[in-house]
């Protein structure tokens, strides 16, 4: 952690730090387990891991309030865990089992939880951006003060519908936070190779949308920026853009040979900028937790993840009759 200045520590409580540590660690261990199950053939298709980006969702969830909504892409496991969805249900969806969040019918990329206000889980790059603005529209329409976190990648940031959405979101003052998770790559295409305007958050200025870039490997910085964004949206000032600078350690999906970047580049990030190491250091240096206490947490998290994996393996496959259900609603689905 040599690269990080720990001197200018923000005031943050021990409880908060421990919570962020736990939440980020849960995501990392969960994803490692998912990778393992994929290798064993228990998870199929695409599986996009979130390892490296944990501080983004954990920091932003720390700024969210109950009732706020979130929506994201196919790289969604971290978002679900961070917003309080049950690791067992997420893992069981990954294995395509009846007790998964979508009864096994959605898979890694398509999970939802009305209870936790998580609106998916979308496979078409960029498509979730107008959807997120639509969720915000529904809140503004009802006149409440909820906000919607709409996550998308640096690659998605080039899709046309993002800009159509920016225009309307600002025009109608929609309470939506556009979170660009800039992990520097869209599959094998680096940001540098996909645009000559690489400061993605500033593109909002053309539509009158405020925003900022944030260090996404620092959960506290993310939380702070998240709080600014939330305050802006909740007070009726319209959308806000957060470009969170982050990094994914693993390949784009499980089948990515990742030849477009060097091993050293990844290694350097892991060693110098890892978000979980950062918080662990804050905890020990600040005297908030001993090594033993942290080890106990690690163990606890491992147990949760193992339990989720067992649950996901033991849960039965969906009943064949499920093939034909949920195509049409019998009764209009209840609104959130």
């Amino acid at each position, binding site marked *: 952690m040599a690269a990080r200045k720990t001197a200018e520590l923000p005031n943050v409580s021990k409880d908060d730090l421990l919570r962020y540590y736990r939440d980020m660690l849960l995501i990392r261990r969960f994803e490692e387990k998912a990778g393992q199950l994929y290798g064993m053939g228990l998870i199929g298709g*695409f599986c996009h891991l979130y390892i490296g980006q944990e501080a983004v969702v954990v920091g932003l969830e720390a700024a969210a309030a109950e009732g706020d909504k979130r929506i994201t892409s196919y790289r969604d496991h971290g978002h679900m865990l961070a917003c309080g969805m049950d690791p067992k249900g997420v893992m069981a969806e990954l294995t395509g089992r009846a007790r998964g969040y979508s009864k*096994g019918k959605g898979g*890694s990329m398509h999970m939802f939880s009305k209870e936790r206000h998580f609106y998916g889980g979308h496979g*078409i790059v960029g498509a979730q951006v107008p959807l997120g603005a639509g969720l915000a529209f529904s809140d503004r329409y009802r006149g409440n003060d909820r906000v919607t976190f709409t996550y998308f990648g640096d690659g998605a940031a080039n*899709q*046309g519908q993002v800009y159509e959405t920016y225009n309307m979101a600002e025009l109608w003052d929609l309470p939506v936070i556009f979170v660009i998770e800039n992990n520097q790559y869209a599959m094998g295409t680096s940001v540098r190779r*996909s645009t000559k305007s690489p400061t993605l958050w500033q593109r909002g200025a053309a539509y009158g949308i405020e925003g900022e870039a944030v260090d996404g490997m620092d959960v506290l910085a993310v939380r702070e920026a998240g709080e600014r964004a939330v305050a802006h949206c909740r007070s009726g000032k319209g959308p806000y853009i957060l470009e969170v600078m982050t990094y994914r350690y693993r390949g784009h999906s499980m089948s990515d040979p990742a030849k477009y970047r060097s091993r050293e580049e990844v290694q350097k990030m892991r060693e110098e900028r890892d978000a979980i190491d950062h918080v662990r250091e804050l905890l020990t240096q600040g005297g908030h937790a001993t090594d033993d206490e942290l080890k106990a947490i690690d163990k606890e998290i491992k147990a949760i993840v193992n339990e989720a994996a067992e649950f996901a393996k033991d849960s039965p496959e969906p009943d064949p009759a499920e093939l034909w259900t949920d195509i049409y609603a019998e009764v209009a689905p209840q609104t959130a």
Partner: protein
Amino acid sequence: MATEILMPALSPTMEEGTLAKWLVKEGDAVTSGQILAEIETDKATMEFEAVDEGIIGRLLVPEGTAGVKVNTPIALLLEEGEDAASAGAPKAAAPGHPAPGQPAPGQPAPEQTAQKSDAPRPEGKVTSAVEEVPHPARAADTAPDWPEGTKMKAMTVREALREAMAEEMERDDSVFLMGEEVGEYQGAYKVSQGLLDRFGARRVIDTPITEQGFAGIGVGAAFGGLRPIIEFMTFNFAMQAIDQIVNSAAKTLYMSGGQMGAPMVFRGPNGAAARVGAQHSQDYAAWYAMVPGLKVAMPYSAADAKGLLKSAIRDPNPVIFLENEILYGRSFDVPVLEDFTIPFGKARIWREGSDVTIVSFGIGMAHALEAADRLAGDGISAEVIDLRTLRPLDYDTVLGSVMKTNRCVTVEEGWPVGSIGNHLSAVIMERAFDYLDAPVINCTGKDVPMPYAANLERLAILNPDEVVAAVKKVTYR
């Protein structure tokens, strides 16, 4: 010179009308704008005005006549001093439109040969969209795809596609490849592997994730005279671009009266891969096959992939080229020939048979062939036809076979409603009804979004068992 006054069309849908009342009589002098008659259309009674000045020589249709066809001469208008007798009898109804195939006056002749639609067209009074053909069907084109004795080599579908692109890029500098991850990444499914090194960044172009944008840029480049190959990482993402494909690429030749079109290829994997869920597992064959102005190929074998892709790149029309991720790695024999192409609109009979015709295309062929093997074991002889292209579609080969076997099962991965099988069933019913000994059965994917769970996905995707069962049903076994 006497002028014929023709029955006017007074509404967009009017084909005939009633000449309710003449407001002039023979010998009257009329001025332009003067009301000549009252005409009842399908919607209302309208007044009909004179365009030219002159003298009414003869009223050819008495008032009160119903069912007067648009463009029928209803009166003769004479110039000053002319008499009705010397003007002669009216000619037969004048055609309302210039003869087909003639450029409209003032229009340049089309640069490309504007072809007629690939789908059978109505002729004369036939109201169906299916062309009348003599019974039996026209003899199908059964010429072999390559000369006998041609040397063959085994090649994967992936390699065949790559070779086709490379050969065409070598041959024509205006051909280029554009899409996501086609260059430095070497292709998301490695189809374009090595092409960047070989042809350089001018001709192998990586795009941002912007399907509608780069599809549109491709169409524009084709308008501008280039021959783009637009790769979609998968056709699921082409839905973002379907407006440019249909509204811009497919229709421009027609809308411009044949002046310009979009000679280009949109290609990429289509259909279900494995366990990739509802948004990544759709077969678009029937969607694109519906669109006049597009050509659609969906090869099964490597030889067809190569020969058809080369034809597609040379074709003066926009071609949708539907590949399949699961087939990419399968090997087939491909002829070793200097320049090998397969024409569009020519089906291939993979296996001759006498009891039933199985028609399929793309990966459906794998199921069809496996089913035919198993059926042979049960003493049922199935003829298996690979359509290879869906637009144009080789109706003659299908009809000829059905007239021989009297039974037909269609096989495709896509959804059942509005499927290629539905279309073929209709054509067979119209043109070979008397030959059928059983209803045609369409084997398709299930009418559900693709589920992720392994067991449900297996149920959703078509399999050879279903084909075998369908054949047994139509053969009453």
